[in-house]
């Protein structure tokens, strides 16, 4: 079959052009002029109005859940917190014995049950507030007692913030760091070892111990990063398995005399930290808030600079958003993967070192991480993987921890309920359409009923006008 018929006005015909130097392919030697090897190309101006300059909606209906989890915004976070407090309230009411008892005769005296529900829920959340922010029930005890819950919150938030950063920075590079536990354990072991094995001047000692802890965590993170980068092993699997490696290896070291075990004990526990290697309390007794909190704030500031301002952070974000484009721009994605996991491990390491030098100074066990490595995931998620978001999410979760104890002690609400509330927050964060539906917010890309109604009215009006004129 022949080619499609060609017409005289076919625009795609090659233009006749003379070749003074002969066609480049012909045998003749073309004229060759010398030109600089590298030249700047100046753009040519084109006719204005030449391009389609409509912008498209940033509408990504099939966008990955990962992206949505990463890109949570403040409103959604607050709504998720509110929604989960409501759910928590329902659970508190449902598990309360008085409410259960009153529900037996609900139709006879509904006021009893409603009152019981109010007592249970209000009491619980009031206890949560008093345990985490301001203890207003005993103003006669003095300002220090009143304000102490707030410092407890900051104290609990300290490692959560650091661990949250360890997850958040990995997130920004598109990596899921589940290895917080292992990284924290190595950091704790290393910092602890420096603490009880060496004699150094007070301030220097604790700083060296923490620095060594951070390095240990960074190395453990980098191991996972290297496995991911050079063998393609999935970082989720790798970090989870490295958690177990770290856990049992350190357990063994804690059991073995001469390694990490306290010579004075048969239990798998390390010697206590000397005073020179512990983080002192910022305000002195009765406050337990130690200088580790300041380190966490410093870590947030550093992380914020790293992600948003530094050249390395620019590369991190480019890899996290679009690995192919990063490769095409000449970035060394493998190196960046290892580095990102090293930073992630470093932040986790700070959390681990804070545990050993601040929270538990009487000797650590293999439970020193206290689940903070995993809590860091929730903190980072709630914080939208931004450094300051992580900071405030860490404060909130610290408040839950501090207040949860009082809630249990004062109101008999199981502390598990607080964990349920925390889990619901993350669940809601991960499912923005659910929260939007619950609060009647417009879904992106869809118009609300009201918008549609207004537009229809507007259209009818213009049509009427058109008919009249």
């Amino acid at each position, binding site marked *: 079959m022949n080619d*499609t018929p060609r*017409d005289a006005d076919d625009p795609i015909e*090659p233009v006749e052009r003379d070749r*003074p*130097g002969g066609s480049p392919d012909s045998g003749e030697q073309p004229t060759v002029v010398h030109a600089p090897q590298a030249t700047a190309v100046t753009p040519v101006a084109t006719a204005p109005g*030449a391009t389609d300059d409509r912008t498209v909606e940033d509408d990504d209906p099939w966008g990955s859940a990962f992206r949505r989890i990463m890109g949570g915004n403040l409103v959604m976070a607050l709504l998720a917190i509110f929604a989960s407090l409501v759910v928590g309230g329902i659970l508190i009411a449902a598990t309360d014995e008085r409410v259960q008892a009153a529900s037996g005769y609900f139709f006879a005296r509904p006021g009893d049950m409603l009152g019981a529900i109010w007592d249970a829920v209000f009491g619980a959340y009031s206890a949560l507030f008093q345990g985490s922010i301001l203890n207003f029930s005993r103003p006669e005890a003095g300002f220090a007692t009143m304000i102490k819950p707030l410092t407890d919150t900051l104290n609990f938030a300290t490692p959560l913030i650091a661990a949250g950063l360890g997850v958040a920075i990995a997130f920004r590079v598109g990596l899921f760091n589940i290895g917080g536990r292992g990284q924290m354990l190595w950091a704790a072991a290393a910092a602890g070892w420096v603490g009880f094995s060496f004699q150094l001047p007070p301030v220097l000692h604790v700083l060296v111990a923490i620095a060594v802890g951070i390095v240990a965590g960074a190395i453990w993170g980098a191991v996972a990063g290297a496995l991911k980068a050079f063998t393609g092993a999935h970082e989720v699997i790798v970090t989870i398995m490295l958690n177990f490696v770290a856990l049992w290896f350190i357990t063994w070291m804690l059991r073995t005399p001469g390694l990490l075990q306290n010579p004075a004990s048969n239990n798998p526990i390390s010697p206590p930290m000397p005073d020179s290697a512990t983080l002192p309390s910022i305000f002195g007794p009765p406050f337990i808030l130690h200088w580790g909190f300041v380190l966490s704030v410093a870590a947030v500031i550093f992380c914020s600079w790293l992600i948003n301002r530094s050249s390395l952070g620019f590369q991190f974000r480019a890899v996290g958003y679009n690995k192919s*484009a990063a490769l095409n721009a000449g970035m060394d994605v493998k190196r960046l993967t290892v580095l990102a996991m090293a930073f992630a491990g470093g932040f986790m390491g700070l959390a681990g070192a804070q545990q050993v030098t601040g929270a538990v100074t009487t000797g650590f066990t293999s439970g020193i991480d206290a689940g903070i490595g995993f809590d860091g995931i929730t903190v980072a998620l709630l914080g939208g993987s931004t450094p300051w978001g992580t900071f405030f999410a860490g404060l909130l979760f610290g408040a839950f921890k501090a207040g949860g104890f009082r809630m249990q002690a004062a109101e008999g609400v199981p502390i598990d309920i607080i964990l349920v509330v925390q889990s619901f927050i993350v669940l809601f964060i991960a499912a923005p359409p659910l929260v939007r539906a619950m609060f009647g917010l417009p879904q992106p890309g869809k118009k609300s009923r009201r918008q549609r109604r207004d537009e229809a009215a507007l259209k009818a009006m213009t049509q009427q006008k058109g008919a009249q004129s």
Partner: protein
Amino acid sequence: MTLELKGITKRFGALTANDHIDLEVNAGEIHCLLGENGAGKSTLMNVLYGLYQADEGQILLDGEVQHFSGPGDAMRAGIGMVHQHFMLIPVFTVAENVLLGHEKALGGLSGAKQKVREISDRFGFHIDPDAKIEDLPVGVQQRVEIIKALSQDAKVLVFDEPTAVLTPRETDELMAIMQQLRDEGTAIVFITHKLREVRAIADRITVIRLGKVVGEASREDSSNELASMMVGRAVELTVQKSPPVLTDNIVEIRGLTVLDAIGQKVVNDVSFDVRGGEVLCIAGVQGNGQTELTEAIIGMQPRTTGSIKLNGLELQGKSVREVLDSGVGFVPEDRTVDGLVGDFTIAENLMLDRYRGEPFVRVGSIDRAVRDEFATEKLDAFDIRAQGIDTHVGTLSGGNQQKVVLARELGRPLSLFVASQPTRGLDVGSIEFVHSQVIASRDAGIPVIVVSTELDEVVGLADRIAVMYRGGVVGVVPADTSRDTLGLMMAGEPPAAAPADPTDPSEGAAA
């Protein structure tokens, strides 16, 4: 059967993709829907096929209003679609693919085979129902798509940009099939932006621009008239350029071979030179190794052997970073995947490959003032239409995105410029702009390599043309080689010999 679309309107947020579009297709006619990329053709067809719900308007078949809530409904009503990207399962046989989703209606695998044979005989397709899809050439796979639609007794067939993946010869064969279908009474909607095809085959032409019908055209209208309707202004379809002035800069590629992950040669022993001041266009049907060739030049293909010398400097074996640093500018084939970070701002994208050292980075920190100044300057110089330098690139139109890529790649001193499919998916206005930039970089005296699957673009831009087929270069020919010869070369037939007299390529003799 008569298909009518009345006042179809579809909005995505603030963007109205289809604005009260009316379209009528009768049995036994080919109705061309002509429009640029992004004009709303595909959206309209997705509404018709039940993939989108129209915000306003009606779909009528033989005067009856239809409500399609999914492709299943549309198929049952007699509408078939041949997608641009085939919806076939490669490891299944032809019959299995045809059967998929219609297991009961076709009466199992034997029924499907019977149906394939029947349709295949009717149209002379010569398709074995037991052949695996992955073993079939692209043109034949497209026929399987057609069989799939016909097996559902489709009375209205929609072809969505069907020629994008075909060689010129396969395109001609497809046209013949479409004409045969029309003669048998099928109503055909043919979506395209290629004027040549429209004028060869259309019975009626409807032109869409920015989501609106701008009018009907006749196939007797000249291409320039059609193009100006499509774009909304007079357009220059030819590339304006002066004769090449060759310089002593040169890139020499010798014996370049690239293996893919399973050890097959995707680029096979490719050798050519490009002098400074000329554009070498690499033509060929998509998937014949062009992508891998450009990626090998840029250092993205790890399993590469051979040599790439740029002004005497060996690039092969270097990392992407080193290649870029030696002055290679690269416009990747898929700008949204490889060229840009959609979630980054324009300013960030403009420094994407200059994240080290001056001018943008000082002591590990990005100098935002310098970055923003650079971005503002480029925004202006390249006429990037956006609200500002902080606009996220993902929200820009394709043309503006490509301008960002060009602004970045041409924003530093270059010694080689490689552009892969630089105008794919762009509107005509942006294509003009991109072409003028390519010619500008050629005139700056550096070697320029352009990969394109669009023969029109190749012929318009090139000073010389290299045609690739199955990883090898079939031949390097002058720009004024006839389309027929190029078409044959794209199907793997080497030119009789390098033509001595370019005006008569059929009678070539050794140069």
